[in-house]
């Protein structure tokens, strides 16, 4: 039996607004965005959750409020226990939450990635630049309204864009995502390919 229910109780004692969060594996709690930094500091300093495994976010789709939830995954190397802390961003249009990079230095890049992919601002972050896409990329790719294929936009380097005439194009998605057949002995068959080859760029998708 894990000792973590006590953690949830201890957290709720300190932060009455914290609520248990539905979870299939590890314990999870919801905390208000304003309390997130203090709650994470409490978990680190008084409950032994010394390792921040990940910072990520959920986009619940346009029109839903609250739209963005920031999720922190914590691990205790002394208690050997995980806990997940989620905080809803109060503003749906310009989501923001306090940085925890002052608590865990490792949060720095995780928060940059979350900013890059979701556009969530981390207030107080020392260096909140994009980390995967380039500075100046106009979109946040993991937001729900952003298509996997991408949106037509200029190349990161305008000079090379002008020289080559190349642009970011919406990738052709015919046949759906490419999937490899692992375990296939025949290497030709195992190569990643579209599973639905009934349509392509020239021949439209049959109506279902």
């Amino acid at each position: 039996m894990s000792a973590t229910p006590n953690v949830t109780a201890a957290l709720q004692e300190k932060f009455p607004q914290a609520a248990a969060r539905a979870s299939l594996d590890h314990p999870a709690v919801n905390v208000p965005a304003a309390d997130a930094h203090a709650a994470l500091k409490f978990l680190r300093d008084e409950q032994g959750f010394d390792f921040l495994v990940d910072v990520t976010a959920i986009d619940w789709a346009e029109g839903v409020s609250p739209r963005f939830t920031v999720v922190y995954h914590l691990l205790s190397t002394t208690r050997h226990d995980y806990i997940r802390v989620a905080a809803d961003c109060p503003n749906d249009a310009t989501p923001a939450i306090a940085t925890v990079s002052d608590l865990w230095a490792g949060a720095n890049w995780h928060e940059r990635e979350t900013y890059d992919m979701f556009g969530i601002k981390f207030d107080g972050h020392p260096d909140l630049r994009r980390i995967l896409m380039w500075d100046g990329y106009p979109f946040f790719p993991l937001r729900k309204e952003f298509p996997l294929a991408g949106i037509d936009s200029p190349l990161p380097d305008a000079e090379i864009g002008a020289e080559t005439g190349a642009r970011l194009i919406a990738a052709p998605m015919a046949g759906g995502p490419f999937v490899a057949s692992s375990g296939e002995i025949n290497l030709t068959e195992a190569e990643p390919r579209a599973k639905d080859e009934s349509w392509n760029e020239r021949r439209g998708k049959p109506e279902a």
Partner: protein
Amino acid sequence: MVSSNTELAYNSKIEGEVVVSRMDAVINWIRTNSMWPMPMGLACCAIELMGTASSRFDIARFGAEVMRFSPRQSDCMIVAGTVTYKMASAVRRIYDQMAEPKWVIAMGACASTGGMYRSYATLQGVDRIIPVDVYVSGCPPRPEALLDALIKLQAKVRRERSATNLRSPQS
């Protein structure tokens, strides 16, 4: 009386240390047999590229073993792997820094077409930013396939009008 020449090969005593040939043939012979690759290793194809360069497959048999990590010293860029849009600018700049004459092999599905990465982040074929001479299929291609591409590229170079280009350089 004229004696017939029974020599099968070049004999300096008979030929007088002169070999008659075409300029194109000589230049292309030199170019094809020591083509220094620029290994543009961007993903898993680069592992196969290393395998091609190593003893088992030995790209040195075709005169292309001198992998140059400086574009100034290389002839043939082997784009081995997924070209992201972020990397595309760097690939193009490195290509621009290579001295003429220069060639490009797009190794594998990703470099040729974007491969399975049909996504917002991946350039859908490196031929959108640099001219490609030979495309290699496979994900990743076997080393033999890359060697085949190199041989095909050599055959292509042998057909080039190199001497004409020397007199009036093409842009």
